[in-house]
């Protein structure tokens, strides 16, 4: 894309091919046998591990989002995005 040989389709394929996120917190939720929203009575260490992982993950996401907001704008002269047509 943008004169590097990467097209929107290739970029999409790359993103689709990314390994699904595997977070302990999500696994705990998905395997939760209770009827409530959140699991209860989990071992303290499991909970600690899940929280540390989520905190780390949200930190990385925040850092990436911050970096994206600081990217220099790139004029898209060869791509038509009708949704944003003015």
């Amino acid at each position, binding site marked *: 894309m943008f004169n590097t040989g990467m097209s929107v389709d290739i970029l999409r394929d790359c993103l689709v091919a990314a390994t699904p996120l595997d977070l302990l917190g999500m696994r705990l*939720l998905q395997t939760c046998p209770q009827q409530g929203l959140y699991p209860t009575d989990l071992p303290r260490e499991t909970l600690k591990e899940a929280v540390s992982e989520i*905190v780390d993950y949200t930190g990385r996401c925040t850092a990436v989002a911050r970096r994206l907001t600081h990217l220099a704008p790139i004029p898209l002269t060869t791509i038509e995005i009708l949704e944003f047509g003015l």
Partner: protein
Amino acid sequence: MNELLQTYTMLAAGLRSDPQFCLASAVTWLDPLWQDDDEDWDVPHDEDGTLAIALRVTRMAFPDIYVQAVEAIRQGASYAELDRLICNAVTERGIPLENLEWIGFGVPMPAYGVELNDSDFYTTHPEVIPILACFGISPEPNPYHMTIPDCVYTAGRTIAADLEKHPDERDRQISWLMQWIFSYSNNSSIDLDYESMSEFQPLSWEKDELAFAIDIIEEAEGIMSDVLAGIDFLSSQPNLLTALERNIQSIYKALDKLKGKKDEPRIRLAWPCLTDGIERRTESVA
């Protein structure tokens, strides 16, 4: 199951089956304060933001305490209950946190330091008075005029350095006692009193600085344990106190001979043998 409960169960199942909803649900459950640190968090019972700062610290440094606190907030815990919960849990991990209000300033450190010019020290530590008497120091009637001469600190350092090398643990405990009294241990918590400690920028809750703080505190606890053992042992051994006083006098004489030069006195000190009572001779080489 009535329709309301069925709806609730269906929504919960929906949240879990969709990956994006599941992720959002997991973050809401485990890390409700995930948004930018600078934002104002709406934490109940927290009028001045202290609890919000405490949660931010625990989120970064003690995830398990963060979970406990979040659970407690969800169950409607009061500010006082959360204060106790977080302070007790942080203290259990080696950081003496008495009040949540201190958490925002950085890692609170214990300050065991001795200020010999402060008359309050003699009131709060009467057990040390007989030991300080060997140095010629005693609490004076007018506490505002207490000045400890430099030679006392030199004598204390010389004795601490000498006993530090002794194989007998009790001698080394007396060395720690001297290092505590004369602020010579190189451990900030041992050498600084509360007032002096307050003049330094506290260590932050960042991982490395927290680990460093815990190391300092653990070392200080070990030193203070030796200091207390040293006080007990020295106080129970009159012949050792006599030897201490004699060694101090030898150091004072050696310092007099130096006539104000800044060199440390080179002097061989004599201590009673702790096992058989045989005493080596004092020999000044300076």
